[in-house]
């Protein structure tokens, strides 16, 4: 039986790992390679690492860091941050990364993304969309450059178009819920989920394993990503890299997945 994926998402800022709240106030949470070593031991399903400086500083991806991360990772690794050209994408894959995450390039130059997909296969291209609710709360908008630039694009329309272009996976990230640990933006997820049939991973707001459970109960196969949940422990947010053990994961699946309505498999 295929399981939903539970995915830690790590943010790189000034070569260290940070965790933000609503895309602001980055708090240092440790060293990237050390975190990967811990996540190896915990046998995480996948790992997403996003360099939140590269696009804003218009700098090259940090190839040395990517190479070290990929060499350490015993699970699929998705890297994002600063990828603007086909050459950069191909170089990153050659370092041993399975998937690359594209964000602002989708808005700035979709044809380059298509060219990258032609070289490496569409299933290795992940589009990360940072979405924010309008003030009225009736619709969403895609932001780029760490939530600093509004694009006027509705993510729900965009994901359908991306699926048609053959993109392999969408990560939808809620700016409003980022770092709040109060649960996922289920309204946003519902809208995006209904628009596509390619793999969807959701990010932003998970504060407990129960939040992930609720998501899995509703959608069955989905990627449940989280930052704060896997780097903080307790109400004072002490930094502690953590992830459910195999038996905790099995218990979560027994409770929320195996008996859920979305699992009609015999």
């Amino acid at each position, binding site marked *: *039986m*295929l*399981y*939903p*994926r539970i995915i830690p998402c790590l943010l790189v800022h000034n070569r260290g790992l940070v965790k933000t709240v609503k895309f602001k106030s980055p708090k240092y949470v440790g060293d990237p390679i050390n975190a990967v070593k811990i996540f*190896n031991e915990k*046998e995480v*399903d996948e790992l997403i690492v996003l360099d939140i400086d590269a696009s804003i500083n218009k700098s090259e991806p940090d190839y040395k860091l990517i190479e070290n991360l*990929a*060499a350490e*990772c*015993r*699970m*699929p690794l998705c890297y994002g941050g600063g990828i603007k050209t086909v050459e950069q994408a191909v170089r990153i*894959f*050659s*370092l*041993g990364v*399975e998937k690359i995450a594209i964000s602002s390039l989708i808005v700035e130059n979709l044809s380059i993304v298509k060219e990258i997909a032609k070289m*490496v*296969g569409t*299933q*290795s291209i992940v589009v990360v969309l940072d979405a924010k609710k309008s003030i009225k709360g009736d619709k969403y908008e895609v932001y780029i450059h760490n939530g600093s630039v509004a694009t006027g694009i509705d993510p729900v329309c965009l994901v359908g178009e991306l699926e048609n272009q053959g993109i*392999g*996976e969408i990560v939808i990230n809620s700016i409003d819920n980022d770092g709040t640990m109060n649960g996922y933006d289920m309204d946003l997820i519902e809208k995006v*989920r*209904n628009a596509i*049939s*390619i*793999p*969807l991973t959701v990010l932003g707001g998970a504060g407990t394993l129960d939040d992930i459970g609720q998501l899995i109960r509703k*959608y*069955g*196969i*989905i*990627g449940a990503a989280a930052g704060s949940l896997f780097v903080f422990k307790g109400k004072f947010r002490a930094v502690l890299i953590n992830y459910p053990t195999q038996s905790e994961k099995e218990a979560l699946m027994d409770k929320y997945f195996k008996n859920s309505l*979305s*699992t*009609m*498999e015999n």
Partner: protein
Amino acid sequence: MITIVDYGLGNIKAFVNVYKRLNIPIRIARESIDLKNATHIILPGVGAFDYAMAKLNASGMREELEKQVIINKIPILGVCVGMQILGKSSEEGNSVGLGWIDGEVKRLDTKLIPYKTKLPHMGWNTVSISKGSELFYNIINNSRFYFLHSYYFYCRNNEDIVNTTKYGIDFASAILHENIYGVQFHPEKSHSNGIGLLQNFARL
């Protein structure tokens, strides 16, 4: 020495990292001479069937590869698309496959997939013993491996099926014919189960 075929596809580095950790020497083959002293061959692959065949045919290594596998009976492990091209053809394209194992590559039937997410089949799924093989020595039945694909290998001969996995249908997730092994999942990215499998392959 274990030799991995670098024809421009697949995560070569991930295999190298696993074998380095196991202290098992590994060589990367970029031209046919590199395949001459191979004791085991890994044929990786990511992406489309036709692209994989085109790259393999253009690599200059195909003839030596066939000699090693078909005449010298060196064990070979095809991974993901590297497994699929062991077959004769694929619904994904028009190219002729290596045809070393009797079968065709077909698209997974989305009508039978009970989730909103259809394809690709992405994530950790259980691998169940059909006839089993030494490749899975010490790996518990129904262990999970990482999958990322939309097509599967349809075996003409059921006896070539080593393990199956359910995603809509039950498909062959590991196959074996004589010295030719194929796995649809990615052992190089499947934690301890994958490392165990690659270690078993090295011991064949």
